[in-house]
């Protein structure tokens, strides 16, 4: 549905987006991650046709955004950053206006407005003026505007910003549900959101894509991915570490807590990521052989925030303690 090729955008001497390419199909939810000023919003503004690219091509559902802007925009719902809305209208007036520009007239318009008022829980503010709404409600209003025509493509710049935890949850569920039939791109600074919602994620830094893959792929890049965490009781910590480090696939066994007590917590690092499986079976064998009393054992998944940091701040060492 969305195809972006070699997209570039400069502001004066500054390169905000640099040679970015990706595509999003129906049924996909693409998460856009990146530090402040990375170029996420700029990319979205170009896809929605608000600002023209300096170079590259964008097409939305086979329509080039420069050559056939109106046909392309018709397919797209857009929630801009900071959720702007006309403060001198009521919620109802604003949604009617959006519906009219989307081509709804008469009864169809009333239905469309009613539908999004229900979906976005705006029932108790319908006749309130927008400038008296709280930030979260404004966000919901702008979100409502973006889905009023049930678009095939949905672009959302930080859709859960400013929402309370319940609403965040609702919006995530909504995005997930809509993602089954639409092509969705959204940006966020909340990494759990990416894990919870996205089918794919892109990390963008200083205008270029630095990582891309499913949330699981990205997490596997973490230095902690595959680390085995094990708690053993009734033994001295040194003894446990020694035995573990003697195993072939083990690079290192580090004490993570419980020193001197009867419950020792050790984290076991594999020599390489490919050896995760071997590591697990080797440790399991050891435990059985030595008849250790294991209270808990699990393989760590790796954390998205570590991956994010190690990719976007390569100078900082993270992950291994």
């Amino acid at each position, binding site marked *: 549905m969305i195809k972006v090729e070699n997209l570039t955008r400069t502001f004066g001497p500054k390169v905000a987006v640099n040679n970015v390419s990706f595509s999003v199909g129906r049924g996909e939810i693409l998460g856009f991650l990146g530090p402040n000023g990375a170029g996420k919003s700029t990319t979205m503004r170009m896809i929605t046709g608000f600002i023209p690219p300096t170079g590259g091509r964008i097409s939305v559902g086979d329509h080039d955004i420069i050559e056939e802007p109106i046909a392309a925009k018709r397919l797209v719902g857009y929630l801009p950053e900071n959720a702007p809305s006309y*403060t001198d209208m009521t919620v109802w007036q604003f949604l009617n206006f959006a519906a009219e*520009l989307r*081509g709804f007239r008469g009864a169809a318009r009333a239905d469309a407005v009613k539908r999004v008022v229900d979906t976005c829980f705006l029932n108790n503010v319908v006749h309130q003026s927008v400038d008296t709404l709280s930030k979260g409600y404004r966000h919901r209003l702008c979100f409502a505007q973006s889905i009023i025509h049930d678009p095939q493509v949905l672009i959302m710049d930080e859709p859960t910003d400013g929402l309370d935890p319940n609403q965040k949850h609702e919006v995530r569920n909504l995005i997930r549900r809509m993602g089954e039939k639409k092509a969705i791109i959204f940006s966020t600074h909340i990494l759990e959101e990416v894990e919870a919602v996205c089918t794919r994620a892109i990390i963008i830094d200083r205008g270029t894509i630095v990582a891309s893959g499913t949330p699981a792929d990205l997490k596997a890049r973490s230095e902690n991915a595959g680390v085995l965490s094990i708690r053993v009781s009734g033994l001295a910590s040194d003894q446990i570490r020694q035995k573990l480090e003697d195993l072939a696939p083990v690079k290192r066994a580090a004490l993570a807590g419980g020193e001197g007590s009867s419950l020792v917590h050790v984290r076991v690092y594999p020599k390489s990521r490919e050896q995760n499986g071997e590591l697990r079976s080797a440790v399991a064998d050891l435990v059985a052989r030595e008849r250790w009393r294991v209270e808990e054992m699990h393989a760590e998944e790796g954390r998205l925030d570590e991956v994010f940091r190690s990719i976007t701040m390569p100078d900082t060492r993270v992950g291994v303690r």
Partner: protein
Amino acid sequence: MNEALGNITAIAKRELVSYFSSPVAYVFLVIFLLMNGFFTFMAGGFFERGDASLIAFFIWHPWLYLFLVPAAGMRLWSEERRLGTMELLLTMPIAPWQAIAGKFVASWLFLGLALLLTFPVWITVNYLGSPDNGVIICGYFGSFLMAGAYLAITCMTSAMTRNQVIAFIVSVVICLFLILSGWPPVTQLLESLDMPTIRDLAASFSVMTHFDGFQKGVVAFRSLVYFGTVIGFCLFTTGVILRTHRAG
């Protein structure tokens, strides 16, 4: 075409809603009427003139509009930029010219309403004497066109900045030029400097010159072309400014 009309109507309607949702519109109307009344009856010497016409009324319009029209139009685009709603508006499936036209039409209608509300002046003059109502209608028409020209200029300046005050000041300055280039003291000065070509050229750019005919009941084709051109040019430039701004 139908769709374009629908979009323009939707945008114009929204603009009118936002005019009347705040007290600003009513304050504006009251000030407009008070100023008109003051200038016509006090400064214009309506009664002393003793003739049954609205000359004393129309003669002030170029000056009144100088401040009132930019005040009514300054928010058109600068507010869109300040609120960030321009990003919403211009990512809707509409052509930018439709948004420009819709906003312009709404404000123009609003100014037209203000003008219509001056009807007591017309009643007064009809009550006191028997004026030529054809001339008066012509004057109203010219005044409306002039308001449109000022408004188009304001539209253009308001697209340039997110700051309404700047938009206001720049439009006042531009409109002032359009007045002064045909204002008798200036034309006389150019005349005395023996520069008739420059004088004529300057005067032909002035709203004064073209509005003058309407006040006397003459609808000159060149004046219609003049107002049409000013409006068309400024709205076109508004489009260019908006595009340039987005292209960065």
